[in-house]
């Protein structure tokens, strides 16, 4: 286990999200997209927020930027350097956006305005917060393009977005985010829409951006590989709530929530010499419109017991400080591999009627009760 960032936990607290909930009213009822998120972002660190579609990871970041639709009901607290962002006037938020907190969006093909040149869009970002003469702004724009790795920046600055490839466009978006040396950069699935080969280049640009600006970063993704390479700390979200959080090594080597374990188990591994089936998590995420009581992961969890259907687990500290998990039986998972808990199967994503640790073929039945382990 390597200690990635020696300054972990000691930097200035930049962004603090406490008990954030976001609800959207729809024709079918209220959608509880985010149900109580807490995290703290310190200077110089990278926080990876991991989750599948619908887990609430993007919504919570849009809430930070104040970019949610007006119909959204937001509660809780988001503070940036001590100042409360929720309820802040649009004028004040305007000053923060693009200058102190910057955001990178998922789809580079649609993030840039097709009718304006790249240079115009970059300079616009610079001039919005700095009183510079046009030529200085242009110089800075060319500089930025060079930093993110766009070849022939002086020429390409006068081109239109459709003349750039997807990866290049995303790098331009990164350049825009970096333009005013922000304190926090939020990258919302920056590589999801790109080919794997291009992903590496974009992630490199992202790393450069962080280095050059010294910003703290929130990296949102569903790709565990991306997080492993970039993040210092990880927050795993499911059904609108965080279910596990900790340092990246803790999460990857010692997951304490079945969902995290399942996610890691479903990844193909090149370093393991086994010719075995992947271990998927069967079933699908619950609807955020009508969540039953209890743990939202219960229907898909092989460890589920009666308690899980009645009471939603809170985030509790595991054996390491900074490593928290929301599972009644997280102790049972210590040292387990994914295929010891989940059934290896090539079946359809639909959940069979009887699903649990009683499935035959699972190596090592997890039947120890909490009391037995505690003894």
């Amino acid at each position: 286990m390597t200690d990635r960032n020696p300054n972990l936990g000691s930097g200035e607290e930049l962004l603090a999200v406490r008990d954030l909930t976001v609800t959207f009213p729809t024709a079918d009822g209220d959608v509880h997209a985010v149900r109580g998120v807490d995290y703290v972002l310190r200077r110089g660190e990278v926080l990876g927020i991991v989750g599948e579609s619908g887990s609430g990871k993007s919504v919570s970041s849009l809430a930070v930027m104040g970019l949610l639709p007006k119909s959204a009901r937001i509660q809780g607290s988001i503070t940036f350097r001590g100042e409360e962002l929720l309820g802040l006037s649009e004028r004040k938020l305007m000053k923060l956006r693009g200058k102190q907190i910057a955001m990178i969006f998922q789809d580079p093909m649609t993030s840039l305005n097709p009718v304006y040149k790249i240079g115009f869009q970059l300079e616009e970002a610079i001039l919005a917060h700095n009183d510079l003469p046009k030529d200085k702004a242009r110089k800075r724009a060319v500089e930025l393009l060079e930093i993110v790795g766009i070849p022939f920046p002086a020429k390409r600055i006068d081109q239109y977005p459709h003349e750039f490839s997807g990866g290049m466009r995303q790098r331009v978006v990164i350049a825009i985010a970096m333009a005013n040396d922000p304190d926090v950069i939020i990258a919302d699935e920056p590589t999801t829409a790109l080919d794997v080969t291009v992903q590496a280049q974009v992630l490199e640009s992202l790393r450069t951006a962080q280095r050059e600006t010294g910003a703290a970063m929130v990296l949102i993704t569903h790709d565990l590989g991306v997080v492993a390479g970039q993040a210092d700390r990880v927050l795993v979200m499911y059904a609108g709530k965080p279910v596990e959080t900790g340092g990246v090594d803790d999460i990857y080597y010692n997951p304490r929530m079945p969902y995290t374990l399942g996610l890691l188990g479903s990844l193909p591994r090149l370093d393991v010499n086994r010719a075995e089936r992947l271990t998927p998590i069967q079933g699908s995420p619950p609807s955020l419109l009508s969540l039953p009581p209890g743990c939202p992961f219960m229907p898909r969890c092989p460890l589920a017991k009666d308690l899980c259907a009645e009471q939603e687990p809170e985030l509790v500290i595991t054996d390491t400080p900074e490593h928290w998990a929301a599972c009644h039986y997280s102790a049972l998972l210590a040292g387990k591999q994914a295929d010891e808990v989940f059934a290896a199967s090539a079946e359809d994503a639909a959940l069979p009627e009887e699903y649990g640790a009683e499935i035959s073929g699972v190596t090592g039945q997890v039947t120890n009760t909490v009391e037995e382990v505690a003894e």
Partner: protein
Amino acid sequence: MPSRVNTSAGDTLGGTATPPSRGSREFTVKARSQRQIVFRRFRQHKAAMASLVVFVLVVLFAFIGPLLWSTSPSFMSNDIFTAPDGPHPFGTDSNGIDLLSAVMKGTQSSLIIAVVVSVVSTSFGAIYGAVSGFYGGWTDTIMMRIADLFLTFPIIAIAIMLDNRFQAEASSLWLLIAVLTALFWPGAARVIRAQVLSLKEKEFIEAARALGARDRRIIFRHLLPNTLGSIIVISTLTVAGTILTETALSFLGFGVQFPNTSLGLLVTTNQTAIEGGHPWLFYIPGVFIILIALTINFVGDGLRDAFDPQQTRVRA
């Protein structure tokens, strides 16, 4: 959309002492077919629903009304230019003809023309557009240029000329229907072609081809059914458009001719009615035209909203 394998879809929200089976707990939202979704969304569009009701009433008025109202629209009584009252709720005209029955007959006529034109032009236009979009290339270019030709000339001019030529047949409605169909089909063709262009890139078309489906099958079994939403909307709006265009043609003397009648013809013959002191003869048929066009437009709009998958209406 494929329906879910597990159909024990219930609205089980309850947390009871014994946890319910996992299957039903997993799916807590009702599954709906596309038709159900469309109907449901249409019902939420209040203006469209109200308009549908009014439109149905108008149709009943036009077709069932004459069975209940015995005065004939061709009977020339002695009451000339009477204002709306008692025996003549809509008044009478210069020949003593009862306006109520005339309006009923006119509405029948206008509606029939409009529906026929709509069905024919939309069907033809949809198939034309689908074929053109499907084959692409030169076929597409030539076909669409031909369609454009129809759009280039003001239809009024064409109508006038054709009418001039076919003087004898002009008293039949077929000429009018043909002219109006010629006006509306290119619009349908364009919209359907655009949809087909984007649909044909989708994987299910590729899959159909891979299974060896012939062109005709792909067009009629796969492409066109997926444009059903647009087709329904277009045909609805064409009905409204036809009624209004027929009015215009009648005004110029090139629409419906005697002995046939239509709302447009009624308004035309009575265009000096206001100055003449019997405004009801001009207003009433006009109001009917507006009513029909308005209700159909609202219904068409409601249908368009109902079929549009990207519409998210938030009850804020």
